[in-house]
């Protein structure tokens, strides 16, 4: 890799203008933890990197909303999210997932926006945010828009983000009454990319499951919401029978990818087992008040 241009815009508008180009070798750069790996291996050779450091502070706030929701600035580091009192109170599942997300050195510099925009299906945070009903705010040359995290990904390392667009914020709806869990599973070293990630969120009312959001990642080409499994839960009591039915539905509805971490058949078994365990754990942990 030889030289490239590194620019430091002083405003969001300037950053968007610098990114508004046909050159696919122009990329935004926040924590850089994923991009640097791609650059080192020659997978990505930038012509220009738009460093977001100078506008970071303005987009790094983490704050609980008045009605049980949460807003996380896209430039918040994963460490800031991990230790935020608001995150721990409103969505403890996020803080819990951080403990085994990469390592402390990566978490200290990697940012929430980049973690989502990278489009890597092996990341831990996207399925968790999707299961919590999260939405991202996006700013671009044509203005701003919002997209649900579950609809952000269009394929393997692909997102719906357009030319010049940046994620500016993640917004979570009220978590009151919801109970959530995230389980991931590695099949090689403990710090490997997960073979499977499962995030679940349930709201119970009147002794039955009223609403469910279930998301699978890592074993699939992109983060995928499990509509069939959710349907198997809604209206049922939160017990092993319902969880087993949901697990069967989940295995039936997703296409699992074979790779060095396991065959598709084996990942089906991992999904079946871990979905049941995640549901049991969510129920066991109890709802956020």
């Amino acid at each position, binding site marked *: 890799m030889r030289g490239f241009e590194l620019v430091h815009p002083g405003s969001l508008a300037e950053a968007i203008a610098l990114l508004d180009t046909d050159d696919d070798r122009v990329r935004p750069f926040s924590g850089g933890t994923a991009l640097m790996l791609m650059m080192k291996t020659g997978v990505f050779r930038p012509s220009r990197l738009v460093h977001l450091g100078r506008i970071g502070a303005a987009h790094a706030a983490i704050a609980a909303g008045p009605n049980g929701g949460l807003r996380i600035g896209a430039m918040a580091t994963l460490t800031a999210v991990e230790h935020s009192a608001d995150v721990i109170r409103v969505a403890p599942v996020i803080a819990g997932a951080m403990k085994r997300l990469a390592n402390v050195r990566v978490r200290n510099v990697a940012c929430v926006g980049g973690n989502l925009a990278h489009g890597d299906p092996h990341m831990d945070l996207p399925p968790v945010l999707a299961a919590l009903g999260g939405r991202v705010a996006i700013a671009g040359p044509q203005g701003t828009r919002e997209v649900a995290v579950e609809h952000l990904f269009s394929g393997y390392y692909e997102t719906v983000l357009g030319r010049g667009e940046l994620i500016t914020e993640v917004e979570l709806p009220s978590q009151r009454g919801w109970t959530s869990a995230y389980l991931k599973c590695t099949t090689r070293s*403990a710090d490997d990319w997960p073979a499977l990630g499962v995030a679940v969120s349930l709201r119970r009312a009147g002794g039955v499951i009223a609403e469910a959001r279930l998301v699978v990642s890592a074993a699939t080409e992109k983060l995928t919401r499990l509509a069939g499994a959710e349907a198997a839960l809604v209206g049922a009591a939160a017990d092993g029978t319902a969880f087993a039915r949901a697990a069967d539905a989940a295995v039936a509805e997703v296409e699992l990818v074979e790779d060095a971490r396991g065959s598709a*058949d084996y990942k089906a078994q991992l999904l079946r087992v871990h979905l049941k365990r995640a549901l049991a754990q969510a129920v066991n942990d109890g709802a956020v008040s």
Partner: protein
Amino acid sequence: MTIHRPLPAGQVGRSVPRLEARRKVTGRAEYVHNLVVPGMLHTKVVRSTVPHGRILSIDTAAAEALEGVYRVVTADDIRTVVPDPWYGPAFHDQPVLAIDKVRHVGEPVVAVLAEDPYVAAEAAQLVVVEYEPMEPVFDEIEAMTSTAVVHEVLKPAGTFPDLKHLVGRRDTNVALDYRLRRGDVDAAFAAADRVFEHEFKTQQVMHTPLEPMVSLAEPGDDALTIHTASQSPSFVRIEIARLLGWPENRVRVKVPYLGGGFGAKLYIKLEALVACLALLTRRPVKWSLTMEEQFYTITKHASTFRIASAVKDGHVTGRRCEVFWNGGAYADIGPRVTQKSGFTAPGPYDIDNVAIDSYALYTNRPPAGALRGFGIPQLVWAYESHTDLIARGLGVDPVAFRRRNILREGRPQATGTVLRDAAIEGVLDDIARRMDWDKPFDRGSGTTQRGRGIAVGFKASIAPTTSVAIVNVAADGSANLYLSTVDMGQGSDTAMAQIVAETLALRTEDVKVVHPDTDVTPYDMATLGSRSTFHAGNAVKLAAEHARDQIEALAKSLGLPPGSNYGPADLFKKKYGMQAGNIIGVGTYIPDYKSPAPETGLSDNVTPFWMVGGTGVEIEVDTETGHVRILRMVNACDVGRPLNPKIVETQISGAALMQLGFTMFENMDLDGGQVTNASLADYKIPGMHDVPDEIESLITEAEQHSGPYGAKGVGESATFGVSPAIANAIHDAVGIRLTALPLSPEAVFRALREAEGNTGTDAK
């Protein structure tokens, strides 16, 4: 653990903190990686993209045209400085750059030179090499009979007398066939009550030193200096001098600290190419590999081991071993692995009738060489899994069955060499006792099933090899130790300084160890195979004793009575009238050895010492996913008398954890000879979260009477038992037997389903 009585000077047996520790943690330790010299060029090589093929053409025009490129070099250029550019420790089979054909993906074909390493890397991408593909062979069993032949003719180096019979052999992939016959194996099998037969496999893995290989050559006036991260500076000097046709003293090899070696940085790796490039360009040339490139440079042998045992009255009476070593495209030290490890293939058991056939095979994979255990972990994996299966087959407790058959002190091993100073039973007993083997064990419940397993192995030292050491006592009584042993993280500087300090009654911290520089430090065969503590340690002790004897003679010549309290500084002053002079002690050590007879493979003195190591584990299996969690791991080794107990313990735990990675998940994924996971992102090594919940390192009570202060090597011993102990524990927990590494969760899960009679994993 044993507390040895301290020695008189209190230096040997003391857990001296590593002499270099402060330098390392403060970033002051020297590494070749950080070395920059004026006028230096960087090189990047263009590597083969096919596993086996004839080179039709090489087009370097575009690379040469790139701004900043200094020169592009092919094998034709190399031959202008080295007419016969083939190197290797056992066979002269490896070209400095590919000649006529390539034998594995990743083989260096062209070298690009530039002052900017990024320019060199970019230019390397512009070189176009055209190949005519040839039929490849990847599997070690197929290589025995395949029509694909990796090397048309075998070219053993003259160094090893026992490879002479291979000279000129054609159209075979068998680089070495080692054979041992002892007793009457057929009769033992014919008379057996029971016969057990199994096949075990291991996968190709890599050393993964965190400092990738790096070498820098500086041309001088009729001389060459090579700074290199090498475990074998003396060998590099000899081999480079041989290639150039120069006397040894015109080649200077300097080695600072290494960021790990594990056998990867042995013999010649990058040195031949940087030497040629420096002579071609008359400029210093540095070659630094990336992590990815290491996967194409040297690896650990994949293997297949067929083992059969005859059992009569509960004793193993006969054993047949057939071992196939996948050596990849170049022999490196593989033929020595085949022989030196081959003869311990029946394991540490007292078996009268033994047949061993051990084959080193060429294939079109990246080359394989020595990796922490020199083939022994592959063998122990097989014979200790097999031994467990026999015990279970006979309905005998696995530890009791081992005790019944174990090779005891004074009994002949398979080669006929009588076992001396090898605490095999002691290691087994220590592990069993520590694990409360005779007490009831919590076997878990539901989807969490628990089990435990044990395994022991042993290894002969590579022989015969030589070490030379020089101890220089200065006029104030302080001492320098000149030694070509490489401290690659194992702590040899500290251990060797302790030997000097004990002998000369100094503080270890006051002994300075001079790092390998072949213009300054004397010959040492190499830092490999756990040989340094014993061989270099004996040479160091002899050198220190030589210095001590001269100090005593000096005292006597000055008319001082024996036992007078004059220290060396006083003696020098008395002798020379001022603080002046030196005393130089020299020690050379080579143990006795008898090469195995070619026909029978037998020898009554096959090794100067035995290494013994064993492992016990308690594990938990998740029966729904196949995940194995190691709750407890106990490793015990016979290290003789520990020179530095703390360093010994870290060598034991380090070796066991490295083997844990090879056991549980490390695996080079190959597709048509290409490594598809050649990076730390995709090739996973153990991290802190993979360390067992409890891990213990036991030093078994022992003494190596021929070793320096009773010590012997320790770097590899704790690798031996890890893989089979875990497989045995999985069998104990859930009743399934895995016969191939790694023991992945999916492999466990599939075996569980198969045992249930449901071969399909999951009906969708």
